[in-house]
């Protein structure tokens, strides 16, 4: 049987800032519908790698192939249209907008709409189908009650959920979740983990998860990649990598994972 082409393939990706090698020759794959954890201490280069995949940064060398398309030179919005969704380490919400409008931006973008003439002819009113899809995503993330609230009135935890819902509303093939539990309490973290599992299982969305909460990583991912100081230390199942001596030294120090 021929090998199945992975959804996301990173091959020897390098990125440096001045003299600092933020990402050094990183290679791994993410299959369609797979959930992969990307862990490592602060400064390991995880978010930089995300930025390279999404097009916010341009790698100096290496290839990033998504769904058979080489991403080199493609701007962020074109990568998003290919099916790469993302949440951010530092929350990026649309101030002054309601939660529902956040999802409407994603929904309209998913449909490839945004033509000025449609606005001028008053053809841009939300359709029933759009509203239902937005409602379904809100329900999935568990923030239906916040639909008409402005994000200005929300705390960090809810803003993270809005970000997640917005990314899911675009129905990405892969979701790059950058520390989604940061700033959330235990209950909220469990909810986010459940949502990530659900979208992976029910929608077949691949998930690449950057997370410091290792219990959440263990709960969500099928496979884990460990980075440290820009390089890849280990790859395997969560238990395998956590048993790796290099990982324990670099990432967990002498304490280890209980």
């Amino acid at each position, binding site marked *: 049987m021929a090998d199945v082409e992975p959804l996301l393939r990173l091959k020897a990706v390098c990125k440096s800032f001045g003299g600092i090698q933020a990402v050094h020759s990183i290679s791994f794959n993410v299959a369609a519908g797979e959930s992969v954890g990307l862990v490592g201490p602060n400064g390991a280069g995880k978010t930089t790698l995300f930025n390279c995949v999404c097009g916010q940064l341009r790698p100096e060398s290496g290839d990033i192939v998504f769904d058979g398309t080489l991403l080199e030179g493609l701007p962020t*919005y074109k990568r998003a249209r290919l099916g790469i969704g993302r949440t951010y380490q530092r929350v990026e919400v*649309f101030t002054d907008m309601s939660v529902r*409008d956040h999802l409407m*931006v994603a929904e309209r973008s998913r449909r490839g709409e945004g033509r000025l003439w449609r606005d001028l002819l008053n053809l841009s009113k939300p359709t029933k189908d759009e509203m239902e899809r937005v409602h379904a995503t809100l329900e999935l993330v568990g923030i239906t009650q916040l639909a008409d609230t402005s994000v200005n009135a929300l705390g960090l935890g809810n803003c993270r959920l809005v970000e997640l819902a917005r990314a899911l509303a675009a129905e990405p093939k892969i979701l790059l979740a950058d520390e989604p539990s940061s700033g959330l309490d235990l209950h909220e973290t469990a909810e986010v983990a459940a949502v990530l599992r659900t979208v992976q299982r029910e929608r077949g969305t691949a998930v690449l998860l950057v997370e410091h909460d290792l219990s959440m990583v263990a709960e969500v991912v099928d496979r884990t990649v460990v980075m440290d100081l820009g390089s890849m230390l280990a790859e395997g199942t969560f238990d395998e990598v956590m048993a790796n001596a290099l990982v324990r030294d670099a990432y967990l120090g002498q304490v280890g994972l209980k």
Partner: protein
Amino acid sequence: MEQFFGFALPGVPYGCTYALVAVCLVLTYQATGVFNFAFGAQAFASAFVFTWLTQYHGWSGWEAFLVSVVALGPLLGWAFDRLLFRHISNANSTAKMVCSLALLVGIPSLLPVIFGPQNLDATTTILPFFNPNVVYFTIAGTPINGIYLATISVTIVVLILLTILLRYTSLGLQMRAAVESRRLVQLDGVNANGVVAIAWIVSSFMASLAGVLLAPVFGAFNSDDFVTLTVTAIAAAAWALLRSMPIAAGVAVLIGVATTVLQGYIPPDSFWNAAVVPSIPFLAIAAALLILPGMRNLDASRDPLATIDPPPPPIAATTRAPSMNRIIRVLWWALFAAFCVSMLTWMPVAWATVFNNGLTYSIVLLSITLITGMAGQLSLCQATLAGVGAFTAAQLANHLGLNLLIGGLVGAALAAAVAVVLALLSLRLKGLGLALMTLAAALLFDATFFNSTSITGGPEGVSIQAKWLGTHAFFNFDGHAMFLLSISVLIVAVVVVLLVRKGTVGRNLAAMRGSETATAGLGVNPTWQRIMVFALSGAIAGIGGLLHSLEQQVVSPTDWNADISLVLVVLVVTTSVTTVEGAIQAGIGFFVTEQILTTVLPARIGASSLTVVLFAFGALTYASHPEGVLEYQKRKGTARFERLFFAREAESEELKAHAISTSAANG
């Protein structure tokens, strides 16, 4: 070589004064985060007072220097900080820019109101031992007189002292830290407000100094020369990335020298001398913005404590009780109907003209609502786009016999095309960078196209002829044609803006205001959104420009120059830049206020200047009330009215809101 030096040396004193203001811009930006467009106006104010005292009151240069520079300069700087900028230190860069623009527009307009129109001739220098009429020595055939020596020596001394202050004192270190986060510096026990106040006082002193040094260099006293001073200083500061004072000073001197060298080599009566030489500072700004990557993220917030600021309040219309909304809507329609009936029946001609001016201006102002209110970007060339529309239509009618109104559509298309070119040039710019680029474009148009007699018909402009509008029966100036045309186009423009705002593009623009990165991450092409809104804004400005010129019956370059662009921003920001009614209130309010002041005030106090001053003071409140003064008052009035008459309904709305927020808090 001697000829080169002969051309270059006269540029040095100009360059020195430019250097002083460029260093002021860098110092203030580094210490306070404010890009103070108003330094040119401060320089003008000090030079005005200095010349006024020496010319009309017989004061010596030293005495006038003490009052106009040593006292007035720092006093203005202290007042700007204490009364204005200190209170908006945590506001976004657009708010700070708007406040400094308001000062730039307001100060030169305030002086004639206080002192009356003056015919000043600046010849006195501040240093009594340098006589302006004495040639002390000659370099490469260039006579060096007292003006040269005073300007160069003062500039060198001041720059050395400033360098010592910033590099070798703890005050300099504190100033640099304060710009990152005034609140964090205060947590370290530093009196950040005091540090910033000193930065303002020092930089304002230098701006005043530059003003009085520059006035005798030019010989005659002209406010346009101070615009050149500001723009050249901006160009120099831009090349220094608003960071390095030595680079800013060096580039400023270089621009001064380059200008006189080009003036010397290019034949004085050629097109190039008229077009290229005055354009050097604007080209320098544009080049810095396009070439230097550091200019692209000038106003990215660096304050780690920025997130503790409360969000801006929602606009009044979104928070009103439904019954209140219904009542207001009915009242608006009644007012609109009464206005239309009045304009068509009993309105005196003078007031009809005032309202027609207001309606046409409102259309131009709506273009700012699109760019600034919806896209969150500050464009300082909307009057230029209006002028492009108006001149295109006038020239098409003049040379091709095309009906003016049809030509107006072509003009709108051309204005949209110019706006698109600007959008493409400034793709990577936002905030301050975009404002500077659009200002450079406006000034470039002033120096080139709007300065060309073949396009604008000279300073008097192109008079509109009745035959350009078809038969008398079709368009009768003496009847109600102008009103009907203006109100119809305004309604169309309002509907267009409202449709865009509630449509997909409006939603995308709102999202981009919040986070352009995240919007692009959803698949929205930010470049295309920006191009669309620029094009539409340009087209609306172009049509508004033609209609306003039609009302004036002349298309004049002075109606659509860069100064007017700044005034337009100040007007609409004062009322509300986020709502269409804000643009209409600003347009009509400006002309109504001017008419009332003309009627009640003596002619000595220019009503037009005073109107600009009033709106400029209104715009100063932008930072505290970014929704606009009228919008703020509307919100307060609405709340008061609702408390009185809709207590029960408001209470139930409040309870509903409380229930939502409580359930949100509970997850």
